[in-house]
C-alpha cells in the first residue's frame, strides 16, 4: 500500500509535472503549426453549442475554484465558516460540475455520431475526453459523498500540493483519503501529464493578451525609418516576423 501511495502521490505528480513542462515547451517551440484548439465548429455548429459551452464554462469555474482553494486555503476556510456561505459555494460548484459533465458527455456523443467529426477525431481526442468525463464524474461523486469538499480540500489537499511544489512531499494525509478521492487526484495528475500530447495545449494559449492589444496590427519587414539612412544599414536589427 505504501508503495502505491508513494507512486500515486510522489512519483506520478513529479513525472506528470516534468513531462508537462518539457513537453509543452518543446511543442510550443518546435511544432508551432500543430498548436491549435482544432475547433470542429466549422463542420458541425449546433450540437457543439450544447457541449462546448456548458463544458468549458463549467470546467473553467471548477479549475479556478480548485486553484483558489490551493493558493488561498485560508480564504476558503473563513468563507466556509458560515453554513449558508458554505452551501452557496458547494451547491454552485456542484452545478458547474454537472454542467461540465453534461457538456463533456454531449461532446463525446457528438464526436462518435457525426461522421464529419469522426473523421477528424484522433485517438488522443477520445482518450482525453473519456478521461475528463471520468474525472468530472469522480469529482461530482467526491463532492456528493465526502462533504464538504471545499473545506477539506483547503485543509488537506492544499498543504499536500504545496509540499509537492516546494519539493518536500508530505503524503500522510492524502494516503488516508478514501479511494474515490485518490483516483480523482491521480487522474488529475495523469491529465496534466497528457496535456502536451493532446489538443489540451490550447488552454495554455488562451488569448488574454487580446484584451490589451490594439485592434490593428501592422508588421514591417524592415525598420522603415532607418532603411533610407546609409549609416544604419550595417546596424543589425532583427526583423519582426522572421
Amino acid at each position: 500500500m505504501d508503495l502505491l501511495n508513494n507512486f500515486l502521490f510522489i512519483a506520478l505528480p513529479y513525472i506528470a509535472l516534468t513531462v508537462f513542462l518539457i513537453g509543452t515547451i518543446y511543442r510550443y517551440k518546435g511544432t508551432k503549426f500543430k498548436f491549435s484548439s482544432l475547433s470542429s465548429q466549422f463542420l458541425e455548429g449546433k450540437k457543439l453549442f450544447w457541449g462546448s459551452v456548458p463544458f468549458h464554462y463549467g470546467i473553467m469555474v471548477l479549475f479556478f475554484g480548485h486553484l483558489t482553494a490551493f493558493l488561498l486555503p485560508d480564504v476558503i476556510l473563513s468563507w466556509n465558516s458560515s453554513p449558508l456561505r458554505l452551501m452557496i459555494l458547494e451547491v454552485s460548484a456542484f452545478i458547474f460540475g454537472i454542467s461540465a459533465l453534461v457538456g463533456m458527455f454531449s461532446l463525446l456523443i457528438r464526436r462518435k455520431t457525426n461522421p464529419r467529426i469522426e473523421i477528424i477525431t484522433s485517438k488522443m481526442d477520445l482518450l482525453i475526453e473519456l478521461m475528463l468525463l471520468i474525472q468530472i464524474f469522480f469529482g461530482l461523486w467526491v463532492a456528493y459523498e465526502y462533504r464538504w469538499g471545499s473545506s477539506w480540500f483547503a485543509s488537506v489537499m492544499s498543504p499536500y500540493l504545496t509540499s509537492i511544489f516546494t519539493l518536500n512531499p508530505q503524503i500522510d494525509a492524502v494516503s488516508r483519503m478514501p479511494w474515490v478521492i485518490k483516483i480523482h487526484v491521480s487522474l488529475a495528475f495523469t491529465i496534466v501529464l497528457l496535456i502536451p500530447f493532446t489538443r489540451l495545449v490550447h488552454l495554455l494559449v488562451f488569448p488574454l493578451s487580446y484584451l490589451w492589444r490594439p485592434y490593428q496590427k501592422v508588421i514591417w519587414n524592415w525598420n522603415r525609418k532607418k532603411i533610407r539612412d546609409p549609416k544604419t544599414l550595417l546596424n543589425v536589427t532583427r526583423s519582426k516576423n522572421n
Partner: protein
Amino acid sequence: MDVRSQVSMLFHLDKCIGCHTCSIACKNIWTDRKGAEYMWWNNVETKPGTGYPTKWEDQDIYKGGWEKSGKSISLIGSGKLKGLVNIFHNPHLPVIDDYYEPWTYKYSNLIEAPAQDDQPTARPISLITGKPIEIKAGPNWDDDLSGSPDYARKDPNLENLSPAEQEAMFQLEKMAFFYLPRICNHCLNPACVASCPSGAIYKRGEDGIVLINQKVCRAWRMCVTACPYKKSYYNWSTGKSEKCILCYPRIESGIAPACMHSCVGRIRYLGVMLYDADRINEVASADVNNLVNSQLSMILDPFDEDVIASAKENGVADSTIKAAQDSPVYKFVKEWGIALPLHPEFRTLPMLFYVPPLLPVMASLSEQKNKEQLDKLDPIAKKWDDDWLYDTSTEELWGTIDDARFPLQYMANMFSAGDTCKVKDIMKKLMAVRIHRRDKTVGDLDKENVKKTLKDVNLSADSADDIYYLTSLAKFDDRFVIPPAHREQAIEMVENTGDVKGSSGFGFIEKPARGI
C-alpha cells in the same frame, strides 16, 4: 501624414466574361489541399445572385465587418468582449454547408466493378467523410442563374429596390446579369486582423498585404465571422484559418498574381497606391453617405511634392513611388474616378476597386409600338406580341442610364453604400467614352453633342482616349505595374546575406499536418 503604400487591384467588370479561369489558377496553386478543397480564395459570382458562401453580403446573418457606434466604430459579430465570450462557440460562424461540401467521384468503380447487368457509375464521394453524398451545392452552383427564385431573388443587394424594379429585373428576356470576381480586399481597416484573438493576422507594412501567420493561428475562428466578404476560410483539417495572400511570393519576384496573370478577359489591373495611414480611423468612422468620398480622399497624389517627401521619410522606396505614379489603379480610381470599392458600408476600407459594368445598362427598355419593326421582319420570322423593344439609341444621351435595364440602385447597393449619384456619374463617364470613341471611329454623331457629352462629365478628349486605351488596348506592362519588393534590403538589415545562401526558401519547415 503617415504615407504608406498599398498594392491594389482593379476589376473592370464590363470585361469580365465569367470564365472562372482566375479561380482555377488560384485553386491549382494554393488551395488544392486537404481541408482547403472548399476554399476559393478567388471566386467569381453571378450577380444578381446569392454568392459564395450563400448570401455572404447579408450581415444580419453573418455579422461581419464594422458598425458605427457613437463617433467610432466597433466590430459587429466579434471584438474583444464578444470574441472572448463566444470563443467556445461562435454563434455567427458559417458552417461548411453555407459554402458547400466538397466532393470527388469514385472513378475506380468504373474499372473495378464486377461484371453486372448495369453499367458501373462513378458515385460522388464526400471529400470530408469519404462516404457517398447527395450533391446539394457546389462551387458556382448559381452560375448564370440570374432570375432564379432560389438564387437571384435572394440577393441581399435587392434591398431598397421597389417590387416593380425587382420584377422588371427578373422577367425572362428582360433579365440581365454580370459577373463579380472576388478575392481578399486587403483592407486598410481589416476586420479579420482586429478580430483575431491570437493576433495571428497582420497587415504587411511595405505593401499592405494581409496575411495569417499559420504558426500563431489557434483556430479561435473569429476572422471567419469578422470578414464581411467571407474571404478568411477555416481549414477544418489543419485547424488553421487561411486566406488569399495576393500571391505575395509572386509579387515579390515581379510576377503578377496567378488570378490576374491568367485572366482571359484582361479585366484586372494591379498597381501601387499611396495613402495616409493617419486617417484610417477617421475615414472608417465617417458617415455612411461620406464613406466612399473619404476613402478616396485618403489615397494620395503620388506626383505631389509633399506626398513624395513624406513617403521618402517613411521609408517608401523610390521605385515604389515611381510604381505609384505609373499605377493603372490610381488612374482608374483617382484620376478618372470611374472605380469604386465593393461594399464600402462594411467600413473595412477595402483596397480592391471595381469599374461597375455599363453593359446591361446600355440597352434599356422602351415601351413602343413594334409594328414598324415587325414590318421589317421576314414573314417567317418569329413574331413577339410584346410592346417593348431594346433601346440602344444615343439620341437621348443619358436617358438610357436612368431607366437602366439594371436599376442603378442595385449597383449603388454594391459599390457606393446606396448612393446612386456616384454610380450614375461613373456610368455617364463610361458612356461618354463610348460616345467619344464612336465619334472617332464611326463619325455618325453630332460633333457638338459629343463635345457636350464629354464636358458634362468633366472628361477631356485626351483622358477619354486614355481610358479607352487602358481599357481596351493595354499591354501586360500597362496593366501590371508591380513595385520591386526590396527584400534584399530587408535581409541586409537582418543578417549577412552570404550566411544564408542556399538556406532560404519558401515552404514549411514543419509539415503542415493536423495537431493532436
